[in-house]
């Protein structure tokens, strides 16, 4: 199992949720894989890449085919592909090894151009998950059939999360308050990382932590797409299509 890795050029995406009816990732990832290949990048899928928890097997198999073909092509062209386990694909924790050239890992400590970057899905800091992982899993599974019939439920949930964030920001005099993810990132940064990259929240973000270092979130490919680009120690959040 790989945890420590040196990567000069790496693209990090998360929360593709391939196989889930609300995810549009398969329609846009093809071009993204071509971008990675043309730029000579390696690829990291930072959790919840495949929707193992909520998708029906038939949907997952059908939707995954083109994504796996894209990954296979990258590997054949010499790129390394790393897969960090998230909460919607937590079953992959049973396969922490190399599978058909894809390195599956619980988290990554990346060194790039002298910069140390932690890449982790981030669900381990989600209070709902930490409090009771089994209840969390059960509720997530239960939402699966609902999403199958009403994919727009995801849009309602996203709007709720965004409104909650705006409200919290407004209550704190216009500056964004530290979330549990900012606090987790700060803990990690204190032990020798320059940047921390999470996924999980579906909210793309690039935040300077006052005590030093940066917290970035890859966002999601469910609607649109954003990613983190690491290039010889330079770390940047990008929106696909910009």
């Amino acid at each position: 199992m790989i945890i420590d890795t040196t990567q000069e050029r790496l693209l990090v995406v998360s929360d593709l949720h391939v196989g889930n009816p609300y995810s549009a990732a398969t329609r846009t990832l093809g071009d993204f894989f071509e971008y990675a290949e043309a730029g000579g990048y390696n690829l990291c899928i930072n959790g919840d890449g495949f929707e193992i928890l909520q998708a029906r097997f038939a949907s997952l198999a059908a939707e995954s085919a083109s994504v796996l073909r894209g990954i296979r092509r990258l590997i054949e062209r010499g790129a390394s592909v790393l897969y960090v386990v998230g909460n919607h694909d937590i079953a992959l924790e049973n396969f922490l090894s190399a599978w058909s050239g894809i390195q599956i890992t619980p988290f990554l400590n990346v060194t790039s151009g002298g910069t140390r970057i932690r890449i982790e899905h981030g669900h381990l800091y989600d209070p709902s998950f930490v409090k009771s992982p089994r209840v969390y899993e059960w509720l997530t599974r239960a939402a699966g059939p609902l999403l199958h019939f009403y994919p727009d439920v995801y849009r309602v949930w996203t709007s709720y999360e965004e409104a909650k964030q705006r409200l919290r920001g407004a209550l704190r005099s216009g500056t964004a308050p530290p979330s549990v993810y900012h606090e987790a990132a700060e803990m990690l940064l204190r032990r020798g990382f320059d940047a921390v990259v999470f996924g999980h929240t579906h909210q793309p973000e690039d935040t300077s932590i006052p005590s030093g270092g940066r917290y970035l979130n890859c966002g999601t490919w469910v609607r649109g797409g954003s990613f983190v680009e690491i290039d010889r120690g330079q770390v940047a959040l990008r929106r696909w299509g910009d």
Partner: protein
Amino acid sequence: MFKKLITSSGEHGTELARTFADAELICREGESSAEMFVIRRGSVRVFKASPRGELELAVLTKGDFFGEMSVLEGLPRDASAQAVGEAEVLVMTAGALLVRLRRDPTFAFELLRRLSGRVRSLNARLVAALGNGGEPQERRFGEALLYQSEPKESGTAV
């Protein structure tokens, strides 16, 4: 895009960042102290005395940690650590380690993985050192290990 600055999230238990000058000792073999260290910047040389002189065990860099055995076992230091160039380390007491393990679960995973790797490496080096084909430096290392394994009145820990 998306850039913003957040307000501070507050204190972190008893963790403390300390800077050491080049060649300054961070901890000394034989001393009693119960702190471990995580390197935030620079490099640290870990070494110990042996019957045949000073033995360098490792040169550690940013993100590496050392001194955890004294925290875990409450025994005197078994090796010394010295800054190579200016180095900044995070100093963690046992209490701070417990707080971190609770709030930073992957640190426990990394700690166990590192300790497991060290045991594996020591086993391999011991076998190599005691075999006929061992290099002189490896034989010295093996002898040092055997020297350490002799029973003592009070234990020691790196």
